[in-house]
């Protein structure tokens, strides 16, 4: 190989300098792209799995860097860790001083709370616990008196975010950012890759994805499969639809994996923050595309809770979002639909 390069160098000296420069320039750019190789990082975080693929000429980022990002995020946002910042907020009577992660997540959450007229609400935590989807194990269903007393703690209007302080107006208010933190984590990692000069990547945490560029050496768009809902908690899902996205975030919220079986009843994990009861509608899963994963992830839950017609109406006024729905028709058949913008990405 060395010898060949020498030969080629000799040859090129015969060429005219001008054409040599143009050729060399175009050639190296092409060569740089074809030399991109995939680097893959996978692991466990936030109670689920993550998978990162970035395309680069050499290894730029390694697993310990990613794992330390996750551990920073946990220290801030994990309700499963009793010493995390969010847990300290939940235990406190009045509030805590935030860090960057908690501030950004709460800020976006409050914005989505307002935008969705309270359908998305991070203060729903006490109800989530009472219905058995939280950190505490419960064996019975809450009665109406319990729900009534918990509702007094619920409502994002009881939160105040002023610069670095997150305060609560009622001591019993607790927050749970699980519906949005994964999307946020995806953004944090995607931004980290970009800061390191990576322009082609896919970041996936627990089924929430952000993607940029193409994959190499094939030089083709990256494809994302949308899962077919499964009947039960263990069945491995197959792919319902495949989309190709050059840049942006795709997240999914589903009613099919998180539920409690109490006797013959399936209790949905979607809780109406206003009534305190779980709600059930025809939607089985909602996949949202947006610029950032935090936005997509925040809205997928809200859209799922709204039900199909309200969600479609909402999306008419929110052009920054596109969505794909899998739902059950009144005759029991499972079908899908999407916003016009979403169809463009389907393969």
């Amino acid at each position, binding site marked *: 190989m060395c010898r060949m390069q020498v030969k080629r160098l000799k040859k090129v000296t015969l060429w005219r300098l001008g054409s040599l420069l143009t050729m060399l320039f175009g050639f190296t750019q092409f060569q740089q792209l074809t030399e991109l190789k995939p680097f893959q990082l996978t692991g466990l975080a936030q109670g*689920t799995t993550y998978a990162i693929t970035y395309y680069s000429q050499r290894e730029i980022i390694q697993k310990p860097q990613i794992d330390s990002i996750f551990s920073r995020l946990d220290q801030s946002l994990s309700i499963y860790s009793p010493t995390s910042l969010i847990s300290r907020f939940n235990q406190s009577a009045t509030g805590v001083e935030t860090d960057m992660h908690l501030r950004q997540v709460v800020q976006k959450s409050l914005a989505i709370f307002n935008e969705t007229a309270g359908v998305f609400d991070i203060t729903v935590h006490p109800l989530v616990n009472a219905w058995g989807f939280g950190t505490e194990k419960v064996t019975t269903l809450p009665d109406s008196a319990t729900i009534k007393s918990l509702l007094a703690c619920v409502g994002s209007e009881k939160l105040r975010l002023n610069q670095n302080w997150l305060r609560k107006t009622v001591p019993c208010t607790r927050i749970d950012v699980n519906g949005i933190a994964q999307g946020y984590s995806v953004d944090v990692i995607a931004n980290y890759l970009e800061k390191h000069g990576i322009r082609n990547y896919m970041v996936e945490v627990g089924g*929430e994805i952000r993607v940029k560029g193409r994959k190499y050496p094939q030089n083709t768009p990256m494809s994302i*499969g949308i899962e077919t809902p499964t009947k039960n908690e263990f069945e491995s899902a197959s792919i319902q639809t495949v989309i190709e996205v050059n840049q942006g975030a795709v997240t999914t919220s589903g009613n099919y994996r998180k539920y409690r079986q109490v006797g013959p009843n399936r209790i949905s994990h979607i809780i109406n923050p206003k009534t305190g009861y779980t709600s059930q509608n025809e939607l089985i899963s909602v996949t949202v595309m947006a610029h950032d994963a935090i936005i997509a992830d925040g809205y997928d839950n809200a859209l799922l809770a709204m039900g199909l017609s309200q969600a479609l109406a909402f999306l008419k006024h929110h052009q920054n979002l596109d969505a794909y729905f899998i739902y059950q028709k009144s005759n029991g058949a499972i079908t899908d639909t999407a916003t016009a913008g979403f169809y463009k990405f389907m393969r």
Partner: protein
Amino acid sequence: MTALAGLAVVGSSAWAKPVAKADVIRLGMIGTGARGAGLATLIQKMPGIELVACCDNIPEHLQKGMSLAKKGAKAYTDYRKLLDDKSIDAVIIATPLYLHYPMAVAALQAGKHVYLEKSMTYDIPQAIDLVKKVRESNLIFQVGYQYRYYGLYHRVKEVIDQNWLGKITHFECQYNRNSNWRFPVSDPKLERAINWRMHREYCGGPLSELCAHEIDVVNFMLNAHPTKVVGLGGINYWKDGRDTFDNIRTVYDYPNGVKASVTSVLSNAYNGYSIRILGDKATVEILRDKAFIYAESTNNAKGTVDGVTGATLAVTTQGKGVELKFGEPGEEKLEPTTYALQDFFSCIKTKKQPISNVETGRDGSISIHMGNAAADTETVQFWKPEYAA
């Protein structure tokens, strides 16, 4: 039963409600060894059931039984005398296998309802004949396969019916232990009476004493009996004078090519009791009081896309087993045999034949004997049409 006609139908939760004195079932226990004593302990907590007589010919065992019986209960060493007592409504027979048939026949002749411990009979002709005798008798006859009454198995059957496993092709059953399977003997004269499991004169070895449950479970899950069986067995590890196998491996063939391997090894205890049900979508593994589902990771198109978006998967659901929940949340989990006994007493009151009855018991026993015969003769054993007349 000392009760009267026109009794209200009692549900399966019968014993939670107090039963009027006249409705008391008077029970006799024949064989108060390990199993009999265990059953008597459970019965003590069941209202409306009185253990009024025990029979055993090992004095310590009889004493143990009497200590668990109702005050004033009668002790017997001859079971025929116990059966002569007209005030007894029903008997439980928990003796070594070779005594099951003569004792059950005598009990039916004496007009007693019978709870006969598994496995049902010592050989095939006895199994077939017992079916006839029960049909003629008008009495309730239950065989001690308690897993048919256990919520865990009902849940497994339910997920099979809902096609969670896809097409089921195989069962893998094992009932292993790492011990010589002998019990201490205080008086050398009692050696064979206590360690009857070591001898073919008294039972069918590991297949009739251990794997019997699993064979019954396969029959139950498939609603069928095997059509043929191959097997190999031996005494290769515990060469201590026993003449029953210390290891046996059989493969049963069921309709539609479903196969069930049934194994017992007495020199390894890893996952001692386990039944794996293999479907093309998932596997269920049933252990003593738990079951797990393992999904197959085939049918997805994941290989063809770069990423997959979906509702968050908990780590535990990927590749690892997911525990199959059963029963109501917070519901007390009772010993499976409690449910079986409750149902026996309820069947006596409602005059219904139990789920684990003489026909399912016959199928179990014939399967066991076919398996042992396959290993003994090293030839395929076929289910004969006359078995299920």
